[in-house]
């Protein structure tokens, strides 16, 4: 098969894989941002037990490889309870991968959010309290936007890393883009021993992160109307 003949076959396969990559990316983002915010509020809570528990969770999750976490979350229920709670096939793998990624990224996000919230001067909270605002109102109406502005650069870093980290889900055979590219190294759809499809996946990641970088610089510009 000539390269010209291989190209459409490979692209179709890579596109399908990339769709799964994007799915995992967006699900992780949607889950990890709110969960990360909750964890960050928990680690700043006055309840010592909650605070201690969350600190340990964050330590474990940040301190061990995501790849191991994926394996444990995927296989553990089946090994211990003889019950695969994730369901079978690709959808089961996707569910397990989503849970692992959401927990992992939420922990990283939580530390960034905590830094962002704690960098807001105490005077902001005090000004709100003196004006009779509740702590909830102060958080949403005063602190949140200042926090978002200050965490934007580190968060954009994490999000760009997330795009690439989705490839780790290959370890539980999630059919994302690296998995799709790798298939052609052995044999797939009449193509065998081809490594270039794997190299080609890099272009997808670059394109996705190019768009994200533009999006973040636009967001930063949007928030430049005020200075903290």
């Amino acid at each position, binding site marked *: 098969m000539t390269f010209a003949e291989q190209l459409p076959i490979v692209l179709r396969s890579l596109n399908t894989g990339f769709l799964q990559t994007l799915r995992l990316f967006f699900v992780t983002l949607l889950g990890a941002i709110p969960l990360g915010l909750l964890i960050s509020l928990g680690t700043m809570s006055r309840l010592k037990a909650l605070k201690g528990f969350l600190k340990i969770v964050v330590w474990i999750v940040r301190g061990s490889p995501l790849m191991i976490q994926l394996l444990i979350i995927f296989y553990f229920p089946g090994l211990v309870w003889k019950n695969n709670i994730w369901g079978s096939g690709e959808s089961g793998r996707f569910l397990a991968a989503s849970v692992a990624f959401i927990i992992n990224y939420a922990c990283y996000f939580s530390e960034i959010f905590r830094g962002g919230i704690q960098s807001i*001067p105490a*005077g*902001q909270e*005090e*000004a*709100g*309290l*003196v*004006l*009779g*605002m*509740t*702590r909830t*109102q102060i958080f949403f*109406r*005063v602190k949140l*936007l*200042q926090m978002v502005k200050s965490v934007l650069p580190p968060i954009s870093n994490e999000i760009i890393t997330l795009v690439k980290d989705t490839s780790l889900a290959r370890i539980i055979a999630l059919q994302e883009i690296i998995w799709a590219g790798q298939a052609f190294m052995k044999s797939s759809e009449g193509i065998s021993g081809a490594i270039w499809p794997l190299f080609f996946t890099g272009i997808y990641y670059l394109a996705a992160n190019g768009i994200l970088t533009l999006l973040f610089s636009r967001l930063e510009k949007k928030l430049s*109307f*005020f*200075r*903290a």
Partner: protein
Amino acid sequence: MAVLEVEHISKRFGRTEVLRDISLSLEKGKTLSIIGSSGSGKTTLLRCLNFLETPDTGVIRVNGETLLEMPDAKNKRQRESELRRKRLHFGLVFQSFNLFPQYTALGNVILAEELLAKDTEEWKQDKAAVRKRIEEHARGLLVQMGLEDRMKNYPHQLSGGQCQRVAIARALALGPDILCFDEPTSALDPELTGEVLRVIRDLADQNTTMIIVTHEMAFARDVADQVIFMDEGCICEQGDPKEVFCNPKEERTRRFLSRFMEE
């Protein structure tokens, strides 16, 4: 009748006694200046009045209503909403302004009043009308502060003096019984203190009840109806400004004032 009565307030941070048995009272429409060196407890006293700190002992009464009565232990279970209502008797202008950076000057003044209005029946019936009334009120206050052409500016676009005047308008918006100032000009460049002192003086002329912690001695003497000199957490001397400034009875007051007069 005294609008504010403070009786036997004490406060310690760890082993340091910051306030020792402070008692004072303030008549409606009068201005009280609190002077004293750094660390004498002036700011802590203001923060206690605004419930940013909880005194260990003592009573605070506004218009005869007891806001705080804690014979010994701190009562942390005071309900938040109750606390918020009580807070509104006081307004506080901070040394470092503490404006909300993501709101315009007008937005800063409107925010709290609008949030409070959301609990009312009127809000449910006609939001637009309530919003309009609050905005008009805020605009009026900013005009009074001489900021009619600065309403749409964000804090970082304003000078320190303008920021502090926005902060004063914001504190006035909720109509506090007593407006407190915590060294309102200490963070300002010298050439900007005048504009802030001028609006405070105007407020005094309009019989706004105020407590002003300040290092501006001449201002304290001219504007206040009553002066308190604090030293090491105690009220060392209090009385009519002319008496305290020109004829201090206490040696410590004399020493403090002479340091300032030399400058």
